[in-house]
């Protein structure tokens, strides 16, 4: 369970957001909605534990582990997709056979590019490398900031399938997106206003 209690963040002489309350139970998704500059990314960083200047409380029940993928998702240009994925997973002490890594990349339609450094990949393909991590992680809370952007339609379809499987297995999904994601139209929403 993830709970936000009267969360406020004061930045650059104004409240970015004030008195946010939300509760997400296992198996539920929460969509963060708001215009550009409303504080979505800051909220994600607070939930991930990267940003600590806030009032209020973030309660994460049980030590379930969370995985944060932001606008910058940690794919290095000099490394190949497999090396990147291996490194990103090793950050949470997950060691996997190479076969599983290539299978995860193949799920995100990255098979021909395994042996090239990621500099040769397009922005959307790099994002897929980072997203392939979702298939192999043990984290139960997924914090996906704009994960659906820069992906083409098949990529979005794979990602929403993966997210649905995560929810079905009792995971928690918190995401933001400017495009409507039909699969998650029913998800609870947390709305952030600009300049409150």
């Amino acid at each position: 369970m993830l709970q936000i209690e009267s969360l406020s963040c004061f930045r650059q002489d104004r409240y970015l957001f004030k008195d946010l309350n939300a509760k997400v139970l296992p198996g539920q998704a929460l969509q963060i909605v708001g215009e550009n500059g409303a504080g979505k990314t800051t909220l994600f960083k607070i939930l991930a534990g990267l940003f600590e200047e806030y009032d209020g409380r973030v309660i994460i029940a049980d030590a379930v582990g969370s995985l944060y993928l932001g606008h910058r998702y940690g794919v290095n240009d000099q490394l190949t997709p497999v090396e990147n994925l291996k490194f990103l997973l090793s950050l949470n002490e997950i060691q996997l056979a190479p076969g599983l890594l290539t299978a995860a990349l193949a799920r995100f339609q990255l098979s021909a590019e395994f042996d090239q450094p990621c500099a040769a990949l397009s922005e959307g393909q790099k994002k897929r490398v980072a997203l392939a991590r979702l298939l192999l992680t043990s984290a139960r809370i997924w914090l996906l900031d704009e994960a659906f952007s820069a992906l083409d339609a098949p990529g979005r379809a794979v990602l929403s399938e993966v997210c649905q499987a995560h929810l079905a297995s009792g995971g928690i999904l918190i995401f933001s997106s400017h495009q409507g994601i039909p699969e998650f139209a029913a998800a609870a929403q947390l709305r952030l206003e600009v300049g409150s």
Partner: protein
Amino acid sequence: MMLLIRELKIMLRSPAGAIQSLMFAVLVIALFPLAITPDPDQLEPLGIGLIWVVTLLSCLLAADKSLASDYADGSLEQMVLSDYPLWWVCLVKSMAHWVSCALPLLLMAPILGGMLAMPLDRIVWLMASLILGSPILSLFCILGAMLTVGLNQSSACCPS
């Protein structure tokens, strides 16, 4: 361990940074005999000090680069969120910085010393002092880079 392997791999695939800081050091040392005097008697007492100053400067110049790309692509955020303790991340960064910047200089030290007319026994002492001192320089440089990486347009050399 994965962290260290990754750093070394990235370094080997883009050696430009390491070559740059080495070239900087060699150029500066090569200019001294030209700019001041080629007289060995006057150059020789300056040698150790000059090489140390050049080592410090090239380490500082390289420090920003060792974090900048990880900051830009978000790897640094992921490392902060990882299960690794932060001191280990910093230590690995410092080690990689040392290998890419101080180690080539250390290996070049006999040639640099020769350019400044240093006798062999002083070159040996110079290398011994570099072996002891340069890892500490790397730690300090990474400290500076860590503090300034989030600020736009600033560097460990010149924070603003």
